[in-house]
């Protein structure tokens, strides 16, 4: 009997963390128990993107999409769906607007507006099996380049596609390759893939490497062919063990198939790839810092020029691109630049992968055409704000980016519009915040991150950011003055102008953008000593409403510092000078007499 059905189970980090591996084991056990191993096969895939509903199980050919599957559901899936052909309704996704079961992911709001180019194979193939990749055109683009195109023609095609670097800054990829190809011709050169995804709240690159490692290897080889390099290095975070494992497997398989190594496809072109591990330093996302780290040194950035294309890894010409940029290359070669440049906006072509997270109903990995609006992303794909709360801001670009607000909801997103709005594309983290998030606290959070991650080489970043953090802390503790707010703005602008590298130059962005968009909130913290979101602990006040208080004494007995006084059956009072704002009284009160001001 031939395999008729495939059961795809997400083996990405998110779903693995909610025990998808036990689901896989149970499914296999049930298939064996029913003697079905010749009929149906379990395939462990990369990320489907809909992490909110994980673990995800998808049945092919009927495209049934099961969500939040537990190991104990395996029996029912096999007995009902695989044997009897009846869908297990209770595991299907329920559309929040119509309350109807949706069985095919194509019809889910989460997927409807997505265009999957970089993520084309994620959740579709077994990333540890090169043949599945080849069946989906894997290495076809490399073959086409090596046999039908000259390096200059390939570069021309990439330039024509309009692809820009997906790591954040958006430099045109074709131009970057062209510069590297013309630099010090005939010398040893290197191709580097930046997989040091340090931006907190972003997991695009990890999911790509876990779900489709061969596309990255293929694109690096194409780049090597274009610029005249025979060796590639992938700089990857050590915190990504699964992605590292999948890359190791993929490199080995590609070598066995003659798709990496010497004389690739009999064309005389040689290309090898090795892995280099990061060790947890955000600044290593900056290309000069990354190169120093690969050389076994502290990951400190250096002035550009010289650019890596002139003098990079081991002082040789080096081309550095990010994972998602590489993931687009094979598609552009296979389908043509003219197909690719029809997607997106005038200056930003193609799609962008975002890690949508925070206070949104559908958290996950999404890929959308450039030019989509935030409203479409948050309310259609993201399913709106969690718990029906009010939307407040969305943060893009991580610690280097800024916040966008309600007034930006209908702006088409591309590299340039985000910069114009005071944020940036960044690598693709997109964190949604609701009315319960305090924007001063958010700015403080990012500054805390930058201060910790600053390499310390240049003074504006090392000292300046520390001062910014101190001022922000002061404000959240209710000790800020209007003078401090002015100081925040001035200092931010100085750091932007004077810092050495991209990390420092962009580090005040979270401060400036929250000041621009939420000035009122800053002023409230300073003049009224009030945090409207109730996040700044020092500004909270617990108060007892004497009309509602029954004098039960529950709060006074629970208060750890004895700040509540009053006699039985008479209203109690909280002494604000003693109160440590722990919230115990608030939780203990059965009558709702205590409120937070």
């Amino acid at each position, binding site marked *: 009997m031939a395999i008729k059905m495939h059961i795809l189970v997400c083996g990405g*980090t*998110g779903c*693995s*963390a*909610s025990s998808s591996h036990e689901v896989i084991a149970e499914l296999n056990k049930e298939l064996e128990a029913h003697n079905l191993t010749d009929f149906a096969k379990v395939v462990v895939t990369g990320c489907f993107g809909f*992490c*909110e509903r*994980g673990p995800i199980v998808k049945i092919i050919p009927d495209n049934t999409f099961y969500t939040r599957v537990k190991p104990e559901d395996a029996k029912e899936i096999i007995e009902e769906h695989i044997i009897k052909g009846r869908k297990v309704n209770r595991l299907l996704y329920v559309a929040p607007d119509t309350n109807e079961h949706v069985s095919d992911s194509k019809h889910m709001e989460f997927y409807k507006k997505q265009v999957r180019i970089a993520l084309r194979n994620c959740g579709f193939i077994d990333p540890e099996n090169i043949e599945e990749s080849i069946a989906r055109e894997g290495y076809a683009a490399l073959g086409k380049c090596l046999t039908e195109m000259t390096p200059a023609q390939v570069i021309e095609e990439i330039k024509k596609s309009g692809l820009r670097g997906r790591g954040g800054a958006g430099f045109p990829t074709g131009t970057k390759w062209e510069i590297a190809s013309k630099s010090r011709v005939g010398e040893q050169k290197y191709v580097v893939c930046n997989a040091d*995804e*340090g*931006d*907190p*709240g*972003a*997991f695009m690159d*990890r*999911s790509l490497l876990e779900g489709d490692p061969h596309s990255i290897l293929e694109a690096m080889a194409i780049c090597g062919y274009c610029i005249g390099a025979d060796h590639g290095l992938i700089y990857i975070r*050590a*915190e*990504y063990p699964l992605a590292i494992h999948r890359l190791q497997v993929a490199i080995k398989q590609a070598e066995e198939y003659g798709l990496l190594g010497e004389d690739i496809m009999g064309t005389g072109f040689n290309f090898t790839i090795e892995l*280099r*591990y*990061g*060790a*947890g*330093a*955000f600044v290593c996302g900056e290309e000069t810092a990354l190169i120093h*780290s690969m*050389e*076994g*040194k*502290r*990951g400190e950035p250096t002035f550009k020029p010289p650019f890596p294309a002139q003098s990079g890894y*081991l002082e040789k010409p080096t081309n550095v691109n990010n994972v998602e940029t590489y993931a687009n290359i094979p598609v552009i070669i296979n389908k043509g630049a003219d197909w690719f440049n029809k997607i997106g906006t005038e200056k930003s072509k193609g799609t962008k992968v975002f*890690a949508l*997270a*925070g*206070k949104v109903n559908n*958290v*996950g990995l999404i890929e959308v055409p450039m030019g989509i609006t935030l409203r479409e992303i948050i309310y259609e794909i993201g399913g709106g704000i969690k718990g029906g709360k009010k939307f407040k801001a969305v*943060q893009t670009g*991580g610690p280097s980016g800024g916040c966008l607000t309600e007034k930006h909801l209908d702006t088409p997103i591309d590299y340039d519009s985000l910069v114009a709005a005071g944020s940036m594309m960044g690598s693709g*983290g997109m*964190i949604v*915040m609701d009315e319960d*998030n305090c924007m001063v606290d*958010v700015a403080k*959070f*990012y500054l805390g*991150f930058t201060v*910790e991650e600053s*390499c310390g080489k240049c003074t504006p970043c090392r000292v300046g950011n520390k001062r910014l953090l101190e001022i922000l802390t002061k404000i959240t503790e209710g000790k800020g003055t209007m003078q401090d707010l002015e100081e925040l703005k001035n200092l931010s602008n100085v750091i932007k102008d004077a810092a050495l590298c991209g990390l420092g130059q962009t580090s005040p962005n979270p401060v400036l953008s929250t000041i621009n968009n939420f000035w009122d909130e800053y002023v409230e913290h300073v003049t009224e000593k009030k945090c409207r979101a109730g996040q700044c602990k020092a500004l909270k006040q617990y108060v007892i409403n004497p009309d509602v208080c029954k004098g039960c004494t529950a709060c006074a007995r629970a208060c750890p510092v004895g700040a509540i006084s009053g006699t039985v059956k008479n209203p109690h009072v909280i002494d604000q000078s003693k109160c440590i704002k722990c919230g115990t009284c608030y939780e203990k009160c059965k009558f709702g007499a205590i409120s937070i001001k």
Partner: protein
Amino acid sequence: MCGSKIKISEANYLKVKEICASFNNNPGELINVLHQTQGHFGYLPEEVQQVVAECLQIPVGRVYGVVSFYSFFTMKPKGKYAISVCLGTACYVKGGDKILDALKSELKINEGEVTPDGKFSIDVLRCVGACGLAPVMTINGKTYGRLVPEQVKDILAQY
């Protein structure tokens, strides 16, 4: 041989030498060497750094410079059960800091510290990449997601 100055057992000394040799004693591989060494010892004490420096023929200062630069490397041993609380943005906006507070008050240690019995240690990390499960913590690599502070006590009791 400067090995005599270093207070480290012969077996451990040979282990570090072996790791360095597997990277051809190439100073360019320092970070990979340290990854493997920390994988073996659990942390990178001063004595071990000295042996690495000796094998790769670089100053101890350079080894220490790299160890102290990268957050992944640690010079303090971790607890038997190493707890890492994610404070990436997605976890932070969903209250990851409150999970950290609950752990600290439950174990009576701060982040970066180990309980006196050596059983637990708390660290903060930036993004596990499981943002769909935020807020998240991991204990020896096992992930606990969609946490509320009240769960912390029960989870610790399992260890």
